[in-house]
């Protein structure tokens, strides 16, 4: 296949990838979009085979490895529970990162195949692109592994901080630039290996100080990194499909990080520098005396909801942990039978990744036109009778509007307190991930339901 023809085919697959993302603007077109993505991928892989044109025994091995990886991927995709989606995405990011590192290593060892010069005499531009691709890929890999371990609960979600952390990180980042510079002037393979090792280290160090609740930002950021790594390799390989895709994924991840940061009213740097909620407010809250709390059982909750004419459900990470989405939908079905209007309110940072709650509700067969974003529904709380908060906490805390001293001050929150009554399903009075007390617990019209989210929802359904 001629180089020009394959370049055009790669461009077509790049365009198909754009259409794949475009399809996601609405659930109706999204399935078609995914199909475009698959076609784009098939084109890219086929064109690569044809342009290499080497159908020797090596080709058989390529197919074997492809089928091997593909069946693992397919197996995971079918077996993974929807609640584990954040871990899955973090895990997949690490694979993209590592693949980028491997391709860069291969290109460094054997540059002739890629038309980049000879070992020890690689074209300067290619070497820089390769170094960037490898470094960003390595950061994506180790960062995603840490994010995965934190989300999976293998590693504590608490931020790990130590003295001089930021100085150390800054020094390592500078050393990456210096190493790249010397790598280009000496073409030394030792420097290339050191560069990769140092990048693995910094990826690890960047993610450990970031706490569990900031995971939506971290995952989006790593999503973005995986894109930039792909783009770096795309420049090395002079491949349009990779460059286009890298740019798309890079900007997509960056936008998602921005949306998540805005959802928490925090700057990107504030999140990255980490250690949120570790120090400032713990002392201030301890001297607060125990305030009275009204707690109830499933019977009380059922009574309140039966007499309501509209109910708004506010799901959060706790719903995912308790796998309560199906039980919740059953409860809502019963409410609807009693002619009670029900809608769902989703905060942008509810859960552990962008759109986490929406997927879980969709899994439980909740129609997506009953699910609303914060801006769409926030005015409705004042007219609703009952707010049913299940597994959410910080995103409902009115302190974000009233107390400038609070670490979450200014964060957009759901105006749950405006409802006539608030039902709060929670296992205990413990503060949320931001480590701050929620005033909502002590309000006149709040009824705390201390139980596992799934069990409580089931009990309420029985009592309705």
């Amino acid at each position, binding site marked *: 296949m001629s180089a020009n023809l394959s370049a055009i085919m790669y461009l077509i697959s790049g365009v198909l990838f754009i259409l*794949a*993302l475009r399809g*996601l*603007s609405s659930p109706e077109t999204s*399935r078609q*979009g995914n199909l475009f*993505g*698959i076609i784009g*991928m098939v084109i*890219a*892989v086929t*064109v*690569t085979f044809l342009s290499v044109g080497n159908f*020797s*025994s*090596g080709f058989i091995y*390529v197919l074997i*490895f*492809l*089928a091997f*990886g593909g069946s*693992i*991927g*397919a197996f995971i*995709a079918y077996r993974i529970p929807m609640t584990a*989606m954040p871990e899955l995405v973090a895990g*997949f*990011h690490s*694979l*993209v990162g*590592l*693949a980028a590192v*491997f*391709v860069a290593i*291969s*290109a460094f060892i*054997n540059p002739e*195949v890629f038309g980049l010069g000879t070992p020890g005499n690689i074209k300067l531009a290619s070497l820089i692109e390769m170094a960037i691709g490898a470094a960003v890929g390595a950061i994506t890999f180790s960062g995603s592994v840490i994010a995965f371990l934190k989300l999976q609960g293998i590693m504590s979600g608490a931020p790990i901080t130590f003295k001089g952390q930021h100085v150390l990180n800054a020094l390592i980042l500078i050393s990456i630039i210096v190493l790249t510079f010397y790598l280009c002037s000496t073409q030394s393979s030792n420097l290339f290996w050191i560069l990769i090792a140092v990048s693995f280290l910094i990826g690890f160090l960047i993610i450990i100080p970031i706490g569990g609740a900031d995971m939506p930002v971290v995952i989006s950021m790593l999503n973005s990194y995986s*894109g930039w790594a*792909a*783009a770096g*390799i795309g420049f090395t*390989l*002079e*491949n349009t499909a990779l*460059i286009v*895709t890298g*740019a798309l*994924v890079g*900007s*997509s991840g960056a*936008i998602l990080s921005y949306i998540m940061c805005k959802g928490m009213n925090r700057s990107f740097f504030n999140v990255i520098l980490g250690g949120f909620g570790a120090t400032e407010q713990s002392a201030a809250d301890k001297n607060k005396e125990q305030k009275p709390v009204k707690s109830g059982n499933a019977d009380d909750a059922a009574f309140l909801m039966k007499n309501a004419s509209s109910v708004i459900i506010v799901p959060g990470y706790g719903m995912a942990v308790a796998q309560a989405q199906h039980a919740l939908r059953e409860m809502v079905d019963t409410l609807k039978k009693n002619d009670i209007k029900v809608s769902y309110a*989703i905060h942008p940072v509810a859960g552990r*990744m*962008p*759109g986490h709650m929406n*997927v879980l509700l*969709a899994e439980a067969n909740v129609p997506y036109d*009953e699910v609303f*974003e914060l801006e769409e529904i926030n005015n409705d709380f004042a007219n609703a009778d009952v707010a049913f908060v299940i597994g959410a906490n910080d995103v409902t805390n009115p302190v974000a509007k009233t107390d400038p001293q609070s670490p979450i001050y200014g964060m957009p929150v759901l105006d749950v307190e405006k409802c006539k009554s608030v039902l709060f399903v929670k296992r205990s009075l413990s503060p949320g991930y931001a480590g701050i007390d929620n005033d909502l617990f002590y309000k006149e019209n709040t009824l705390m339901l201390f139980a596992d989210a799934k069990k409580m929802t089931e009990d309420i359904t029985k009592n309705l």
Partner: protein
Amino acid sequence: MEIDPFIFRLSIFILSIFVGYYVVWSVTPSLHTPLMSVTNAISSVIIVGAIIAALSGGSGIIFSSSSIFGFLAIVLAAVNIFGGFLVTQRMLAMYKKKKKDK
């Protein structure tokens, strides 16, 4: 004076960033999770580099130091491609509208 082909690629790159920017802003927030899984899948188009690397030995040597890295990268990217697209499809299949006959 001739323009370096690098400049063409850079132009494609910059324009794609802008395309990505506008396309992703139009993605509905409820589909942000599928967005992440599908971007994951498409960024695995890095497999094209892995295939070139794996076949670098020509017909003589199948497993050289550089092709081994290529083969490993193929496995990783393949996990992502199949896993990413299939899990996205599984998720998107769940998004349903309210039944009209209610």
